């Protein structure tokens, strides 16, 4: 049963050690228009396709998240946010990251407060339940804990940039944002009239993130992942990114994925690591698994308003905890039980036979 909330022992990808495969970047053609990845392609690519990519979160972050990398994450908007991954990134203090996303609720604010962010390329940064993100504000207004660069987008423009990246194009097109200061300030959005009708359009420069981190309900050991619920800009993010880290509630047999191929949002060939981390999207909701932990967002807002208190919060909830299991233990079984599905609504099976 998916989302039993019972901690499952982690497996490591022993099979991946000792092999080094040359994997061609599927976005080779788009490479000239974006910053090149600083990560060691050889090491990332050493994980064999067709074999298990299951590993612990600590190992996945160590292998895939390199200082200075650009990462698309929190791309479902307010749901399925890969908080377990982001907290491990903060714990390992992998710094100078560029974060790419739409409205990733308080994820980006948390990572900025955790000191790992150099640049934000996003439509919105804050806390959806309360408004302002205080770590974001401190970073922009006072340079605390460090100054960050912000490239302002709308949801449509950032998704268009990723879509273009995923299609191997240099830019995408929108007809939004005319007359705004977002357009005035962002050098990566420029006017371009339609060559056929002359109608005004805006060209949005493609984005090809080094990595996309996605939280999914389930995947097989190769990283073929089923996602359901709202998708946000995840389809574009996984197409655009060079590599994908998939965090799942449950690793399932190959047959489960292949029994419902329309539900596969992420094909395993671009996935470099699969991490089984039940409750890994908490406090954000995950359809069919758990709801939105309202109180967590309010408490985060109160606790991060002042920098001294924020430091205490990060120690208590991120830096002072060795791994996700400790985080879940700290939340307590009662709190988690209160977030579980209480009104089941399974889908009707469909026939894939021939």
């Amino acid at each position, binding site marked *: 049963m998916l989302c039993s909330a019972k901690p499952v022992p982690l497996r490591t990808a022993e099979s991946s050690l000792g092999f080094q495969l040359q994997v061609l970047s599927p976005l080779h053609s788009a490479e000239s228009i974006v910053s090149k990845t600083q990560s060691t392609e050889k090491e990332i690519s050493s994980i064999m396709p067709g074999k298990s990519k299951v590993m612990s979160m600590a190992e996945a972050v160590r292998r895939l998240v390199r200082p200075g990398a650009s990462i698309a994450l929190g791309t479902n908007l307010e749901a399925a946010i890969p908080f377990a991954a982001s907290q491990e990134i903060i714990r390992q203090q992998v710094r100078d990251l560029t974060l790419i996303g739409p409205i990733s609720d308080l994820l980006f604010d948390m990572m900025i407060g955790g000191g790992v962010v150099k640049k934000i390329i996003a439509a919105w940064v804050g806390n959806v339940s309360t408004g302002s993100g205080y770590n974001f504000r401190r970073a922009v207004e006072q340079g605390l804990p460090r100054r960050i660069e912000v490239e302002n987008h*709308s*949801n*449509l423009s950032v998704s268009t940039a990723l879509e273009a990246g995923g299609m191997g194009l240099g830019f995408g097109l929108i007809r939004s944002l*005319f*007359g705004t200061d977002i357009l005035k300030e962002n050098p990566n959005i420029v006017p371009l009239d339609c060559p056929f009708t002359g109608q005004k359009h805006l060209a949005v420069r493609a984005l090809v993130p080094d990595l996309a981190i996605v939280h999914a309900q389930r995947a097989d050991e190769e990283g073929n992942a089923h996602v359901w619920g709202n998708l946000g800009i995840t389809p574009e993010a996984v197409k655009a990114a060079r590599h994908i880290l998939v965090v799942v509630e449950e690793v399932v047999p190959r047959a489960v994925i292949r029994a419902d191929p329309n539900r596969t949002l992420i094909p395993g060939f671009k996935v470099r690591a699969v991490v089984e981390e039940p409750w890994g999207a908490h406090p*954000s909701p995950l359809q*069919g698994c758990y709801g939105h932990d309202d109180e967590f967002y309010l408490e985060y807002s109160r606790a991060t308003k002042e920098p001294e208190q924020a430091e205490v919060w990060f120690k208590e909830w991120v830096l002072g905890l060795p791994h996700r299991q400790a985080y879940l233990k700290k939340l307590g079984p009662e709190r988690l039980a209160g977030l579980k599905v209480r009104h089941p609504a399974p889908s009707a099976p469909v026939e894939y036979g021939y």
Partner: protein
Amino acid sequence: MVIKPGELMVCVAAREIKNSDVVFVGMRLPLLAFLLAKSTHAPDAVGLFENGLIRDEPARGPIVTMCDPPIITGAVACTSLREVMGYLQQGRVTLGFIGGAEVDVFGNINTTRVDRTRLPGSGGGADIASLAGRLMIIMSHQRRRFVRRVEYITSPGFGDGPGWREAQGLSGGGPTAIVTTYGVFRFDPTTKRAVLTQVHPEVDLETVRRETGWNLAVANDLGLTPLPTLEELALIRRFDPKGFWTGA
């Protein structure tokens, strides 16, 4: 019974939704307004949510964000942001809702920065304001928010007046109303300036004038907002039982 300003705003906004509307629903109060309209006079209205959700019936339980499970359960479709934004860009969305930190007399909205204070940013707000057929703005009425000119245009209204939207290339119709804690503004078709056309019960004009940062224009036939019905109040409290969005 005490009616909270947030509840009144939700009712006013909900009444703007027609049964035939395809609505691009924002977060917070607009989300409640859509759920209320669906449950009362606009059962056939279709809601598009920027997370990719298409919904034609009210959420099955209380929600805090548009991604909470009770609003996904029973949806017509769970797609991607680009799919619903596509409907917006091709002109199929007849009504959009947004809020903001600052609004000016031409309905331009700022959610990016005020002086040195950094705000969260556009989200989908700029896209909705650019492309929706009609745009409803919902905001708490305070002088620091209702400014003569916004410092930063995040979501475009009528810019600096008549003809601006067309010259820029904006295809959406622009703002039709601002629903506030004190009343409702509509936009003069000629000057494109906001005019107070309606006040809520027990609100006096002096208060509105004091809390508005531009020279307040008042319609000759100033209306009075009818009180929410018991049914409307009950529905709002069903969708927001803890007063999370409408205020404690």
